[in-house]
Structures are given as structure tokens and as C-alpha cells.
């Protein structure tokens, strides 16, 4: 990436940053579409021998030899048996039966997490700079589990199994599926044992936003990552025949449109299809779009596919207009036709102009990379949102990280759009998704692991969460680009990652494997179900009152019942108590609590002060929430902070009434 290190403050010299040789002891395993090993991002210059603990391999296959790996890319495997069992033998003319990445996604995620620094990186001159992963000295091992037909759980589980055996310290999974109960979810099951063996597991939250309740990978032993923007964009300019100028986004780099104005048409008026405005394949009437700029609505098919549909129908350019769901979010893509992606307001203005003018005209021009865009970050519209439908007592996502317009390594086997007709070859591509934010956290977790080798995965997750920020420097809450409103913990979890603060969090919520067992007991899981997840014999104590409220998690979710669902006219406040334990990871200090509470809920923390005399000392506290009745569907939010004047250990709180 060429901007996130600076955006995250990694460019600064901070005394407690881990030394390069310590980072190089950390191994990040990436489960994805494989790897393009020839990328300069896998240059191993300056790296010492592979860590002695490493037991992995560089598997040989089509276009992949044992010498494809080096001291940077120390392992590469592929898992295709589940895929081939479902789809039949892999067609090697279409994809490589080897760790080689034919898609690009896996090269992008692995280089985002831990790519070596590459000077002079850009995509067609956009986002130019030095590209590097978050943990640029860490080692990478890739596990190819995703193929043209998808990613299958039997392959993913085999990859997790092997990666942990190989000796990875961090696992990065930018994929997801439906979330049945934890004991039916093989990714959650594999991640449990991985975490129990000291492996930090980060997963993407999903791209189901902005709808609520759309999260993937919500198990509490997984770090669930949503996506936000950087302070960078790629402007493209639309000039309308009425003189109005509109700014959108694009990474188009081909032959520009003429300065003179061209006819413009709304796709919905140039198609016989009921969903003609979406520019789906073969839905545009060539007679109505030939030689014109076409306005297409977002949704239904990929953004780059729409440009191709326009081009194939004879159109000369595209304006990609957001609908209500995407708000003002502007995603940059390496379109094959001159394009400007515009927000909903601009899209509406352009459509209004088209409908009001007998001969509407426009032109599109592409600008250059712009830095310092504010406000930033804003929550991506696509980033999946809470509440956590599987376990409403656990707040997810855990945090957000950069996931919009991210430049990172790409495959030599596909063009930047991924379209078959895109014959361009690039070493770097700019793409968006929670797939892109997840490896940012994986790389940052590797940095924390290097700085604090004895920290558990839960301690690392806690440090990342409790030091995340949820407001801008001016005090305003991070915005949600889908509606321009302040975001909530259901959008951002604890907030946006702040790695320099995470390196020295002061206190952590060090959730243990035993805590997770108590959590499973609180879910009323049977011993059999617990054993499926953990491999261990564990019988919940019938005399013990296991409570979901007491999982030692760095955030709080408080589901409440309305009087009607409680079965009566009772309007008395509901009182619930949560318990947490903090572990000191700093010098002796005294922390005092502060709470910002909504008017509907009174929050009492006991004790209000915690003194730690030594490192790793633990102290517990309780939080009592006294909540007034609210209509079903109500939501409210609060924040709890412990501070010793030097550190702030923050936790978001989300209340829901159902």
C-alpha cells in the first residue's frame, strides 16, 4: 500500500516500534486465491534465515516450483480437493492447480499484510509512491483455498489445519459465508483451536453493508474487521451541457474523451429490460447508446462489468451513479471505458438534467491522485454492519481499517478489472472491500506480536480495539458514507485502528480459552457441541451461572427487552450487570473510569478506580446498566474509558431494545 502506512502513523519513528529482526520472526498465513511470487513485494532482500520454528513448504504445481518461495514468501500451499469434489477436476487451462494466484485477490491481501517495500509503485500512475505491507519485514505463507468456483469449507479447514501445524503466528481470512451456529461453522471451529494455540485470526466482516445485521465471521475468538476510507481519492470530472461540473472518481487511464460535449443518455431509457438502468449484460439498446455517454445505476453486477456492457453496446463513456443504498460512497475502478463514479446526489442531478433537456450532453475527464481528503476515515457503505444476529451480546465488527481504494500487489494472470477482456498487466492494483481491511489488521497484529511476543491473540485484539478511535480530531464521530450520518458501534465496533497507540495500550482484556468455554456454556451448548469446537472434554458446571455478559471482551453489547416482549405492562427499568477483567501491560499505574451514557440508560461502574502495582496484574470491575423501557427497534450507544492520564482504554457500548 502506498498511503496507509502514513495514514496509520506507521511512517513516524516511535520508540516502542518493534525492530525489523523481531518483525521478521513473525509469520502471517493468508488463506486466499494464492500468490504471484514474482512480485517485487515478495523481494527478500535484507531478511535473515527463515525462522527456525517454520515447518511449512513451498508446494510444487503448475507454474510453481520450490524456488518460487524465498526468505519473504516462506510457504505456499494449495487445497483443492473439496473444490474438485464439488466441481470436477480443475481445468488447468483456466486456473493453476498450484499455489499460483490466477485471480489477484490473494496477491493483494498478502502484500497488504506483509509486502516488502517497493519504490515507484502505482496503478497507471495513480496512488504513486512506495508500496509496503503493514508488517513489511514479516514472513508470508499463502494457502490457496479459493478457486474460480468459490472457496469450500473442507479446503479452508484443511488450510487452517496445515497453517497452524506449519507454525504461522497470524491467520488472515478475507472470505466468509453464512454463519450457522459456531459448532456448525468449520471456519469458527478451526479458528478456535488456532487461537487456543496462540494464533491471531483476523477475518473480514463482509460486504453486506449498509444493511444492518449483515456480518460474517462473528465468533468472539475471531477479530472481525470492517472497512473505512483513506484520505485519498482519484477524481474524475463530469461536465454537463448546462455548464454544471461534477466530481466523481475513476482509475480510467486509456484514451480520453474529447473536450467537446457528447450526447448523454440514462440507461433506464435505453433498454427494454425492467432493470435496464443497471447496465446488466446485453440489456442496452445499441441504437440508443451508440456514441453516447451512458448513466448506469450501481448494483446488480460488478462496477467494471457495467462499463464493458456500455462499450459493447457502442457507448463511449459511463457515469456510474450510486443509488440510495450506497449514498455518497465513491469507489475507484480501473475501467475499460472513460468513467466517473458519482454519489447519489450527483447521480440524481445528472438524471434530472437528462430528463429536463431535449438534447442532453456531457463529457468526462480523469484527474490525478488527491491526498489529504477530509473527513477521513469514513465508513464504507459496503462494510457489513451489526448487530451480531448470532450472539447479540457480542458487539461486532470489532474495528475498522482501511479497505477502500487500496493499492497492493496483483497477479500477472489477470487484468486489474478481472474481466476476461482486460488484457492489461499490472504489478499493483487498486481495489476495495473488507477483504482489503482484514489484512491491514493481520499485518498490524504481526507488528504487535513482534513487539510483545508473549501476548495472547486476545491481548493483541484488545490492544487494537481499546486504542481505536471513533472520532476525528475535531471531536466529531466518524461518518458513515452511506448516509452522511455519524457512525455507530454497529458500523465501526471500537473504531478505526490506531497502531502506534495499540503498541502501548496500558491495559488489555486478555480473554482466555477458559473464558471462551464459559461463553459456550452460557450459550447452553452441550458437552458434545463444545467438543466439536474445542476438541476438549468440557462439562459446564450445573451449579455455575454462566453469563454471556461476562465474556471478557473489549466491547459491550447490551440487548434489552421491551415491556411487551417481557410479557406485561411493566415499565420499570431493566438492570443488567456485566463483569470484565483488565490485565496490566504497562508500568504500575492507577486508572480511573469515565462513562458517556445516553439518557435512556444509567451506567454504574464499580470500582471507579483500579490500581495496578505490577505488570500482568489483573483487576476486575462490574458495569451495571439500568435501562429505561424503549420501543422495540430502538438503539442507543455509550462509551466507557479507563485512563491513567497516559493511556486511554476505551470500549464502545451498544444497546438494543427488541
Amino acid at each position: 500500500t502506498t498511503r496507509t502506512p502514513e495514514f496509520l502513523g506507521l511512517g513516524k519513528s516511535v520508540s516502542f516500534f518493534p525492530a525489523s529482526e523481531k518483525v521478521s520472526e513473525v509469520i502471517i498465513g493468508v488463506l486466499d486465491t494464492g500468490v504471484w511470487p514474482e512480485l517485487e513485494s515478495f523481494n527478500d532482500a535484507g531478511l535473515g534465515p527463515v525462522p527456525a520454528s517454520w515447518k511449512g513448504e513451498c508446494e510444487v504445481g503448475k507454474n510453481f516450483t520450490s524456488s518460487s518461495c524465498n526468505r519473504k514468501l516462506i510457504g505456499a500451499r494449495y487445497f483443492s480437493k473439496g473444490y474438485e469434489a464439488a466441481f470436477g477436476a480443475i481445468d488447468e487451462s483456466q486456473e493453476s492447480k498450484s499455489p499460483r494466484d490466477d485471480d489477484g485477490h490473494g496477491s493483494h491481501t498478502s502484500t497488504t499484510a506483509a509486502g516488502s517495500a517497493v519504490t515507484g509503485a502505482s496503478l497507471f500512475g495513480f496512488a504513486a509512491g512506495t508500496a509496503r505491507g503493514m508488517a513489511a519485514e514479516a514472513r508470508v505463507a499463502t494457502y490457496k483455498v479459493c478457486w474460480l468456483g468459490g472457496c469450500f469449507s473442507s479446503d479452508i479447514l484443511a488450510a487452517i489445519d496445515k497453517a497452524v501445524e506449519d507454525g504461522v503466528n497470524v491467520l488472515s481470512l478475507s472470505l466468509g459465508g453464512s454463519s450457522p451456529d459456531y459448532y456448525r461453522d468449520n471456519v469458527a471451529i478451526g479458528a478456535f483451536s488456532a487461537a487456543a494455540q496462540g494464533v491471531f485470526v483476523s477475518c473480514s466482516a463482509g460486504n453486506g453493508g449498509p444493511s444492518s445485521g449483515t456480518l460474517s465471521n462473528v465468533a468472539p475468538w475471531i477479530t472481525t474487521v470492517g472497512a473505512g476510507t483513506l484520505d485519498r481519492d482519484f477524481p474524475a470530472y463530469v461536465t454537463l451541457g448546462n455548464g454544471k461540473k461534477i466530481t466523481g472518481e475513476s482509475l480510467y487511464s486509456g484514451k480520453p474523451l474529447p473536450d467537446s460535449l457528447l450526447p448523454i443518455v440514462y440507461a433506464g431509457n435505453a433498454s427494454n429490460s425492467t432493470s435496464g438502468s443497471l447496465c446488466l449484460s446485453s440489456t442496452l439498446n445499441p441504437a440508443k447508446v451508440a456514441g453516447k455517454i451512458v448513466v448506469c445505476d450501481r448494483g446488480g453486477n460488478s462496477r467494471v462489468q457495467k462499463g464493458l456492457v456500455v462499450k459493447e453496446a457502442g457507448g463511449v463513456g459511463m457515469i456510474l451513479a450510486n443509488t440510495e443504498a450506497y449514498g455518497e460512497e465513491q469507489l475507484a475502478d480501473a475501467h475499460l471505458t472513460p468513467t466517473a463514479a458519482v454519489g447519489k446526489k450527483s447521480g440524481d442531478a445528472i438524471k434530472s438534467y437528462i430528463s429536463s433537456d431535449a438534447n442532453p450532453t456531457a463529457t468526462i475527464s480523469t484527474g490525478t491522485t488527491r491526498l489529504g481528503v477530509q473527513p477521513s476515515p469514513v465508513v464504507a457503505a459496503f462494510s457489513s454492519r451489526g448487530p451480531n444476529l448470532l450472539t447479540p451480546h457480542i458487539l461486532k465488527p470489532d474495528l475498522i481499517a482501511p479497505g477502500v481504494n487500496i493499492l497492493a500487489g496483483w497477479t500477472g494472470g489477470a487484468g486489474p478489472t478481472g474481466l476476461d477482456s482486460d488484457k492489461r498487466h499490472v504489478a499493483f492494483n487498486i481495489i476495495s472491500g473488507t477483504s482489503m481491511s482484514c489484512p491491514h489488521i493481520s499485518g498490524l497484529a504481526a507488528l504487535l506480536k513482534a513487539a510483545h511476543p508473549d501476548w495472547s491473540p486476545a491481548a493483541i485484539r484488545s490492544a487494537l480495539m481499546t486504542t481505536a478511535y471513533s472520532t476525528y480530531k475535531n471531536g466529531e464521530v466518524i461518518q458513515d458514507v452511506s448516509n452522511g450520518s455519524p457512525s455507530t458501534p454497529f458500523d465501526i465496533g471500537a473504531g478505526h485502528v490506531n497502531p502506534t497507540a495499540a503498541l502501548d495500550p496500558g491495559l488489555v482484556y486478555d480473554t482466555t480459552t477458559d473464558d471462551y468455554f464459559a461463553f459456550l456454556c452460557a450459550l447452553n451448548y452441550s458437552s458434545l457441541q463444545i467438543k466439536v469446537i474445542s476438541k476438549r472434554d468440557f462439562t459446564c458446571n450445573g451449579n455455575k451461572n454462566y453469563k454471556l455478559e461476562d465474556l471478557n471482551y473489549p466491547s459491550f453489547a447490551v440487548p434489552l427487552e421491551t415491556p411487551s416482549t417481557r410479557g406485561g405492562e411493566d415499565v420499570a427499568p431493566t438492570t443488567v450487570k456485566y463483569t470484565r477483567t483488565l490485565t496490566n501491560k504497562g508500568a504500575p499505574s492507577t486508572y480511573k473510569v469515565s462513562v458517556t451514557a445516553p439518557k435512556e440508560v444509567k451506567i454504574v461502574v464499580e470500582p471507579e478506580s483500579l490500581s495496578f502495582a505490577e505488570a500482568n496484574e489483573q483487576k476486575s470491575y462490574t458495569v451495571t446498566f439500568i435501562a429505561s423501557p424503549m420501543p422495540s427497534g430502538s438503539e442507543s450507544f455509550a462509551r466507557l474509558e479507563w485512563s491513567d492520564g497516559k493511556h486511554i482504554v476505551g470500549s464502545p457500548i451498544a444497546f438494543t431494545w427488541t
Partner: protein
Amino acid sequence: TEAQKSNRQLKKKTYVIHMDRTNMPQAFDDHFKWYDSSLKSVSNSAQMLYSYNTVVHGFSTRLTVEEAKLIEKQEGILAVIPEVKYELH
């Protein structure tokens, strides 16, 4: 129809079989042989796709719905979980 129902039952799907190694019968000195024996007891033709040893104990294989129900009832089987397709984000 009955024929369609029968076809559905014969159609194989991938399952991950989670095994309880602490309940491995004493007749076996190797968990892999135990997995294989468990599989062969419900299907002579089924092949093991993977054997899992580190984060879970068990294996994956292709079974009919009937075979999956049969193996689920065996001693030492913790869970039989159907294959799920995941997508990149």
C-alpha cells in the same frame, strides 16, 4: 416423484466428519485407520479428501444423505457438517 427422491438420496455431497479421538476404540492403534474404518463402514466407495489433525480431528469425504446419517450415529463421531461455500470479500 419417488425416482427423484431416490436420485437425491444417492447424490453425494461433501461433509466434514469431526471425530472424538479420546473415544477411539482400542482395536485401533492409529487414528487414520480408525477414520478409514468408520468411513468404510458406511460406504465402500467413499474416499477421504482430507484428514485433519491439528485444529480439528476428523476427515472430509463425499457421502449420500443416508450415509451421512449412518455415520453420524457411530460411536466416536462428534459431528457431520455439510460443505459450505464461502466467498471472497
